[in-house]
């Protein structure tokens, strides 16, 4: 295939790069070589330093030591513009869109096509946006504002932005974390085309199937240090995982069998105009019910409405038999609900606040003595949960923004599990979490279910859905199109329901 090392020096190369933040050594001695016409995978646990490496390539961070070479020549990327000029395009882990600009402007900002008078050629900008959207299959118009786009759409716009840069080096930091299979597959097609055109690609993902299906070469990083770099063909998942984690990882979906108890959550005829319609289901104690569907099916909106963050137009919600007032998260919490939201940066965490404050923000009342709340009470309460979830942190008083993505997700989980809920909504609970932790989270969820918790899990990862759920509710365009028991649910049946086709008839 394309593994033949090209005679020319690689377009981008990192040599013994180190980068520290205060006392955190994010990268220690990291080397990496990106070759033309090759897709290179970078895998590692949460906090291993992948994003830091990406930001170094992008010119966001400057390495403390070590250097970057482009075409064999040492270069300094002092700012993102330098990297861009050198032909590097980056899709960052967290979308970086301008909510007030249209998607077309988002894609072309700073390099819009110009007319002879140096004004912006808006017609051409629109045309080129439509072209790239068609290539990616994005059903958005070029004038659509970026505000309010779902995470998936945001990610797609990011991808379009990077593609139109026609870069020689394309770096993608977990681009598929928010995407469903269809979009991801489209992205892979585009990536392969680019590879064949001689672009050097770096791909980061926690999904090994993607890594093995797409990439030619895999680099493993652990604790900021280089571990290994081999052709994908010479590796298998177990080997990679062992190198990443430093030990073997057992079964990914440790589902415990439980006897469903009494009905804890009853939803009837829940409707919000234009978003979801006539949603009804029940969840029993000890059950894990998954909400599956394509991106934009309205799953997140349903759990948000149930929890009271959004309002709904019609319908009723009962928790443990008692009717729940709508639009009041506090009442929902009092009734024993908890929601781990899908977007941890916007909805889950206060990035500037400390780890301890975030982790305890849901039960400040309970931690108060005579109405007074002390940092010590917060720290103690947080520390025990940090241990349970093997949270990787330096100090509990550090801002949560200094944690890696996966560890941030753990803080969100801790924050809600600590309330001791009876009904737990989790929206994409393992998005951006590494294998080891993912297994921990899954074990945790099924353990909690075993203790009598009712869990509603929204997930775009089908194996997770199939592996964890007692029942699967499939949504399509705001309606529940199928309710499948654990033994009925398989890839096919869920897919058909998710695309709005009648489940079994379609097969004939």
């Amino acid at each position: 295939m394309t593994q033949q090392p090209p005679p020319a020096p690689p377009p981008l190369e990192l040599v013994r790069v180190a980068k520290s933040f205060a006392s955190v050594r994010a990268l220690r001695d990291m080397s990496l070589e990106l070759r033309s016409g090759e897709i290179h995978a970078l895998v590692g646990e949460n906090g291993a330093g992948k994003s830091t490496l990406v930001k170094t390539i992008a010119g966001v961070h400057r390495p403390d030591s070590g250097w970057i070479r482009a075409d064999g020549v040492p270069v300094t990327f002092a700012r993102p513009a330098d990297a861009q000029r050198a032909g590097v395009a980056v899709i960052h882990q967290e979308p970086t869109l301008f909510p007030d600009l249209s998607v077309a402007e988002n894609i072309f900002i700073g390099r819009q096509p110009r007319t002879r008078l140096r004004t912006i050629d808006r017609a051409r900008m629109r045309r080129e946006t439509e072209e790239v959207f068609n290539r990616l299959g994005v059903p958005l118009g070029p004038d659509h504002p970026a505000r309010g786009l779902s995470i998936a759409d945001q990610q797609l716009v990011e991808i379009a932005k990077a593609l139109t840069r026609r870069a020689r080096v394309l770096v993608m930091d977990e681009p598929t974390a928010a995407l469903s299979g269809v979009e991801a597959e489209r992205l892979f097609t585009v990536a392969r085309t680019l590879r064949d055109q001689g672009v050097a690609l770096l791909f980061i993902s926690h999904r090994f199937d993607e890594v093995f299906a797409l990439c030619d070469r895999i680099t493993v990083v652990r604790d900021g240090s280089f571990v290994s770099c081999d052709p994908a063909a010479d590796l298998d998942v177990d080997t990679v995982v062992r190198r990443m984690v430093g030990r073997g990882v057992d079964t990914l979906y440790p589902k415990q069998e439980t006897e469903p108890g009494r009905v804890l959550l009853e939803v009837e005829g829940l409707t919000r105009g234009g978003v979801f319609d006539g949603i009804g289901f029940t969840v029993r104690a000890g059950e894990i019910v998954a909400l599956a569907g394509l991106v934009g099916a309205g799953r997140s909106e349903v759990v948000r409405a149930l929890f009271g963050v959004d309002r709904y137009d019609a319908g009723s919600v009962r928790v443990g038999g008692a009717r729940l007032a709508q639009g009041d998260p506090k009442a929902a919490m009092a009734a024993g609900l908890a929601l781990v939201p899908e977007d941890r940066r916007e909805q889950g965490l206060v990035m500037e606040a400390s780890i301890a404050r975030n982790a305890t923000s849901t039960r400040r009342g309970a931690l108060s003595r005579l109405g007074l709340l002390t940092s010590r009470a917060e720290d103690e309460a947080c520390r025990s949960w940090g241990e349970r979830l093997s949270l990787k942190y330096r100090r509990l008083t550090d801002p949560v923004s200094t944690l890696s993505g996966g560890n941030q997700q753990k803080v969100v989980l801790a924050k809600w599990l600590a309330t001791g809920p009876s009904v737990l909504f989790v929206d994409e609970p393992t998005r951006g979490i590494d294998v080891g932790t993912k297994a921990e989270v899954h074990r945790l969820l099924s353990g909690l279910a075993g203790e009598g918790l009712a869990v509603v899990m929204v997930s775009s990862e089908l194996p997770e859905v199939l592996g964890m759920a007692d029942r699967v509710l499939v949504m399509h365009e705001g309606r529940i199109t199928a309710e499948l028991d654990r033994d009925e649910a398989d890839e096919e049946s869920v897919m058909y329901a998710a695309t709005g086709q009648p489940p079994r008839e379609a097969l004939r």
Partner: protein
Amino acid sequence: MTSTTAPTGPRPEGPPSDKGTGRARPQRPVRELGVLLAVVLLVAGTWIQNPGFLSQQGVRDLFLGATVLSVLAVGQALVLITKNVDLSVGSVMGLSAFGTAALFAALPGIPVPLAMAAGIGIGALCGLANGLLVATVQVPALVVTLGTLYAYRGFGHWWADGGQINAHQMPEAFLALGGVSVLGVPLPAAVAAAVVVATGFYLARYRSGRELYAIGSDAHAARLSGISVGRRVVAAFAANGALAGLAGVLFTARYGTVDSTAGFGMELEVVAAAVVGGVAIAGGVGTVYGAALGAVLLTTITAALPIWQIDQFWHQAVVGALILSAIGLDRLLALRNARKLGGGTHGP
């Protein structure tokens, strides 16, 4: 563990039904139109009340009255769009108004354009200082410009030392600028209109103009996109300072008498004008046309109230109520717009 990702069925394609081009067009101009409508209604109503309001002199007065505030509001809009704010504009305007006059007084033979350029230059320098503090030292603009509001004003007082420069100390040619008309529009107003149109065109059609919106929308993302955020912000502040300087020059030409108090307390009025015109305090949103219309609306209100025979003591209350209704109306339009766009999952 072969295929671990979600279903690979087709995502709804073709003519997008619920999301896509169909519901795409943002309807921004509605805001500016709303303000324009308010101005038109106000003028029409006042004219019916008293035809003298639109006499030749009345129209002239309306134009001239709106000039200074419009120029200031345009500059403020530039800064607000980058998610900053400049509270020092009143002081900057006062400083350059006095500076221009002082130059005439000190060098009686000085050519008029040179003195005017000097006035604009004083403003640009003040704005540049604001911008450099905000961009290079990375401190919030509201704090810095609140500080320079006091500092520039204090400097102006210290410079003027209680002095006042009167019309007879300035050349006739300069003072006559206020009286010259271009196609029936007084020259200062024409200058202001040209400034509005040019700035508006620049913001909409030039890369650097759009980058101001990007910066206001999300400065971090702008940095990642390779935009030199600091330079653009400094430029926006300097431009705002220059416009405040221009406003100062126009002020001097129009009123003929200046001391160091010119433009005192105007900062909040300027911000109010921009906000009424649909420029968001939160950055990234709005046009200079809106800001200028907001300024016209506010000055027209002040000019119209005496004609409605509204008791002097009610003036300020009425102005306050009108500002509130303007932003309320604006919000209403935005909400209706959002509802039309669909989605709208978040409360206001």
